[in-house]
């Protein structure tokens, strides 16, 4: 049982290292750029997979949480507080040690919130919003839940698009790197940034986060809580009768997946050096949902693989202007021929297609 869970993990770790070694030796490290970005999106998608596939709660608003993370992280670390230096608030923040002085690229003096503090703030805000929103929203079911989460996503999108603080249509640019570990002694530090010389290190940061995130979720779904979540998915009424506090479990997992999305948002924004409103758009949320579905909903490995691979290909631009069309076609094909996700394809579809479960009398 346990071994079957950790073998693939070891496999993916080895794969990640191999890819890095291979690209470095062949001088093709540029592949790491998109692999890094894809890993962060992967983090959003596995978080959503637990919410959707296991707990059975659809959310067409997860781009909103990603954006909350990314935008707050970006805004706090870019907006210059120098002008407000004397205000009580800023002084207080300074004493807390969350501010950071610096220089921007054109040599101007800056006083901004340090990335660590910004990251914590961003993720906390996302978690808090998820918590407050989750209480009423998760009482809804099915299409109604879908609409409410979609509405939430739209609200976030509208807010970032309309607020000067968030840069309106242009979003926020020139976000500084995020030094996770300062350089100590002979060891170089760890910095999340898109500059060409941090590439390998960022590749590892991103994949480490993704793999750790994955292990945590794999553990979770394999635990008492995971079982409870699946039970809620299966039948909320019965789960409740078994003593599961369905409202609380749904809320917790909603917050958890929001935290995943927000973390991904913070890190990817530092890596990209900016964020734009399209990251908060409904289409983005729909894309996340679709990727989870294509990966097989309640199949973390499937969603991880589909999420990373499709995002990687799209970011490489290999489908050119047909990117969306290809994505749509993949959605349809997978849902038609491998409704349990791409990983189920080789087993079921090839063996006994057409003999699929017939109309089960429960009536779906």
């Amino acid at each position, binding site marked *: 049982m346990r071994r079957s869970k950790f073998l693939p993990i070891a496999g993916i770790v080895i794969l990640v290292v191999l890819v890095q070694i291979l690209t470095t030796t062949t001088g093709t490290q540029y592949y790491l750029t998109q692999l890094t970005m894809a890993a962060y999106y992967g983090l959003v998608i596995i978080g959503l997979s637990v919410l959707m596939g296991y707990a059975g709660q659809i959310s067409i608003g997860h781009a909103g949480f990603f954006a909350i993370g990314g935008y707050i992280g970006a805004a706090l670390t870019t907006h210059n507080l120098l002008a407000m230096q004397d205000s009580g608030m800023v002084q207080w923040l300074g004493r807390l040690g969350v501010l950071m002085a610096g220089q921007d690229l054109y040599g101007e003096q800056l006083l901004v919130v340090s990335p660590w503090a910004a990251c914590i703030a961003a993720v906390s805000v996302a978690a808090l919003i998820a918590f407050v929103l989750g209480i009423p929203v998760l009482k809804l079911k099915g299409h109604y839940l879908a609409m409410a989460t979609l509405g939430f996503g739209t609200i976030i999108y509208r807010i970032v698009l309309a607020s000067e603080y968030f840069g309106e249509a242009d979003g926020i640019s020139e976000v500084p790197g995020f030094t996770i570990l300062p350089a100590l002694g002979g060891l170089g530090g760890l910095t999340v940034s898109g500059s060409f010389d941090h590439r390998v290190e960022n590749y590892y940061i991103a994949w480490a986060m993704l793999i750790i995130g994955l292990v945590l979720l794999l553990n979770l779904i394999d635990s008492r809580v995971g079982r409870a979540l699946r039970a809620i998915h299966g039948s909320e009424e019965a789960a409740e009768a078994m003593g599961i506090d369905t409202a609380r479990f749904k809320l917790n997992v909603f917050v958890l997946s929001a935290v995943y999305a927000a973390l991904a948002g913070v890190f990817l924004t530092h890596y990209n050096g900016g964020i734009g409103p399209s990251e908060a758009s409904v289409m983005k949320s729909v894309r996340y949902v679709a990727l989870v579905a294509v990966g097989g909903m309640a199949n973390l490995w499937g969603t991880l693989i589909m999420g990373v691979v499709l995002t990687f290909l799209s970011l490489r631009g290999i489908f050119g202007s047909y990117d969306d069309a290809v994505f749509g076609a993949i959605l349809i094909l997978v*849902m038609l021929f491998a409704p349990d996700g791409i990983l189920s394809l080789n087993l079921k579809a090839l063996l006994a297609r057409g003999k699929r479960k017939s109309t089960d009398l429960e009536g779906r």
Partner: protein
Amino acid sequence: MTTELFFQYLFAGITYGIMYAIVGIGFNIIYNTTGIINFAQGEFVMLGGMISISLLQVVPLPVAIAGAVVITMLVGALIEIVFIRWLDNPSVLRMIIITIGLSILIREVALHIWGESIRSLPYFYGNEITTIAIGPARISPQVLWVIGVCGVVVAGLSLFFKATPLGREMRACSANRTAAILCGINTRNMVTFSFMLSAGIGALAGCVMSPITYTQYDSGTALAIKGFTVAILGGLGNSMGAVAAGILLGIIEAYSVSVVPLAFQDAISITILLIILFVRPHGLFGSSEAARLKEF
């Protein structure tokens, strides 16, 4: 607020609302037979507009519209036959994802057929600056067309689903597919028919709205989102509900302009809608009883 302004907002709100409602109704039709939301509904609206505009080059307006409606209905039927019909026992989410995929594909195909530029049908009566004074407010005659078409459609559909055997049979398909089969109903044909019907209504909406809103290959998406919102808010499956919710949303949007910057309009109106939804989790006119008995 002056009465003039009051009415001007009111009419603006009704205009928006009716447009949302008519898209929302399209959702309801397919929902009523399959229990799913067809996210490609917005694309039917776009197709209606685009096809009629293309046809207009060779035939007169009424023929162009009729042609567009028929062609879109065929597209709807084709989609159902190719992508939905043969699925054995699709789950709700699977169908939803398929329709999302379809909506993306249709959009891309439209982009390749018609390009990225905007098009529109001419005003049915008068032109861009013709207005009619209604009380102190002035509106474009096209708005009356939209309202009229929507009214006819809603009345027709409500009657259809409530009172005709075919409508009842279509609802039965979504209530319990197996049971419908056991009653001898050809559920597959019902689903095909519902796709045709909603495609047709979507296309008709696309035609009457086109002069006001213009048509672009991706104009379906935004409409679909609003239509979906309205369908949910009105209580899924309930056409009257969709109209009421649509007009409510439109009016909230219109009046919200008077108090907040336009840029925040959607944020405000959707917040209000969410609050309504929290109080009435099954929509304004949805029955909580019925919703509890549904699976998704």
